[in-house]
């Protein structure tokens, strides 16, 4: 599902900065300082809109109750309290939900990487017919509406006793995360020079040994990026968890937190704090690995 054959360069270009892409197309010629000032105003607004909801909800989570409901609302925090966070963290069901999320997303990531890396290597490096068929099937799966299979899966999972266990969510999440994993890994594997495996094979290694000893270590950064993306995907999943996990003790945060609107009816600060706690780890991951994530995402989507 590629845009163009040159997309591989695009992703690298992205990491490097688009310095040469359009050259001095706009910035250099004409307008000078005025246009570049406008440009930065535009950028500032764009960044502000992107992060404003998080900042606002963060503010709600750290101010006192009287300020949360104040009319007119305050823009900058005027009071401070850790009350909302202690409410949330003393809620045992919230802690359990966090652990459940980590287990479900973590196991899904490991399973996807294992099966995904093997399949992606074959697709990227080995020759076989039906490759396009396989790739098309994999891609089609990742975009079909998940609701189309929740009823049959529910019946199946109930028959084998998986309802209200982590495995029901992990198995279903894996099917939708695996295509993502494979597509991104294929594009990372293709960027590695083939000479190294050739050399390993000449030295007597089998294809599988070459894969394990040469490709996997070399592709480690790409595999790591894929792991982050798969983890974020599984961490954010809601539909399957809501369908198969109706007992509170196994629900992940995505299912628990919307219920806080009825648990902490008027405690908006606590609801805000819960949202912040679930988001912050992802925001930190994104800030640290933004460059890699962008190249992984665009590789998976534009190229693949």
């Amino acid at each position, binding site marked *: *599902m*590629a*845009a*163009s054959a040159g997309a591989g360069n*695009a992703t690298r270009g992205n990491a490097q900065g*688009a*310095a*040469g*892409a359009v*050259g001095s*197309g706009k*910035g250099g010629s004409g307008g000078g300082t005025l246009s570049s000032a406008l*440009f930065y105003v535009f*950028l500032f607004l764009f*960044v502000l*809109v*992107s992060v404003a*909801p998080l900042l606002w*909800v963060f503010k709600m989570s750290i101010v006192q109750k009287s300020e949360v409901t104040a009319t*007119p*609302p305050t823009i900058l925090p005027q009071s401070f309290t850790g009350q909302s966070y202690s409410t949330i963290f003393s809620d045992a069901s919230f802690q359990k939900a966090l652990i459940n999320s980590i287990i479900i997303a973590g196991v899904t990531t490991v399973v996807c990487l294992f099966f995904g890396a*093997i*399949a992606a290597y*074959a697709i990227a490096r*080995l*020759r*076989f*017919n039906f490759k*396009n068929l*396989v790739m098309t099937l*994999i891609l089609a*799966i990742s*975009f*079909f*509406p*998940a*609701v*189309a*299979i*929740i*009823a049959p*899966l529910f019946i199946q999972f109930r028959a084998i006793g998986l309802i209200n266990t982590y495995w029901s969510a992990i*198995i279903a999440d894996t*099917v939708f995360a695996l295509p993502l994993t494979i597509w991104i890994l294929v594009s990372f594997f293709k960027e590695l020079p083939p000479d190294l495996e050739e050399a390993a094979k000449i030295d007597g290694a089998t*294809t599988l040994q070459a894969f394990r000893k040469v490709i996997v270590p070399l592709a480690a950064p790409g595999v790591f990026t894929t792991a982050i993306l798969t983890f974020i995907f599984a961490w954010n999943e809601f539909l399957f968890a809501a369908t198969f996990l109706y007992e509170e003790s196994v629900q992940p945060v995505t*299912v628990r937190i*919307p219920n*806080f609107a009825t648990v902490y009816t008027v405690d*908006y600060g606590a609801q*805000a704090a*819960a*949202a912040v706690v679930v*988001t912050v780890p992802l*925001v930190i*991951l994104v800030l640290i690995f*933004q*460059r890699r994530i*962008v190249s992984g*995402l665009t590789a998976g989507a534009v*190229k693949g």
Partner: protein
Amino acid sequence: MTTASGSKKRGGLFQELRNPERRLAYYMVLPALLIILAVAVYPIGVSVYLSLFDARINNVGEFVGLQNYVDMFGNNDFRDGLTNTLIFTVVSVFIEFVIGLAIALAINRAFKGRGLVRAAVLVPWAFPTVISAVMWRLMFQDQVGIINYAATSLGVISQPILSDQTLLLIAAIVVDVWKTTPFMALLLLAGLQTIPADVYEAARVDGANVFQRFFRITLPLLKGTILVAVLFRTLDSYRVFDLFFVMGQRELESLSTFVYKSVRVSQILFSVGNAAAVFTFVTAFLIALFFIYGLGMQTSTEDS
């Protein structure tokens, strides 16, 4: 490495399996394919099968032909869901595309603070949809919501946003645009960077102005990327579930929420829900076919 059988001969599967390298490739792809077949393709078949019976969650019931589909179209909630899904998909993808392209064009150059902008772009994308719905709900809310407060003081709205179906749908579109425009911009930016700078230089030398360069060079060369990005977003919006379910507190209907409620919550709508599940799947499939055959989207760059 190149063996005679590695040439481009299209053999059947049995011939393929005689070649050790190809056999290995199939073994490597097989586990991932089996997972996909067992947990996605097979259940789709079951959904189709169930949709032709007067099924309950516990038994298959009598064969009723297409009666479930007739009942489905007669169901008001289903019709609301279909209308809302169509409006949501068309409007949000259109806005995301226009703004996304504008942003991509603007930041397709070297400037200070690229990393910051890229990180800010990724923040909404990394949010769990459910959590962004919770956060925005807090902002749209009539007690503590800053947006509801601002809109009321400006006289834009006369009733609380969350209690009105139309305003809720608009709010859902706003959240979706906020969350996924950056992603659209990233994809389009990666596509823009594949366009070589000398094409623009040549056009400039020939006296082409900004608009000519945009419509004659940028858009045609970007067509592949645009189609991929828009198809991805369209299929993603079409199956919207989390956002409607949480923002609308189960009041705002989409195709997916209708299926979920029918097959998981309601006892009597199970068979209609199966019909709606199949309907959602088939129509999503038709959308993809339209992009590939109707709009000429390239589906592969596989060279082997």
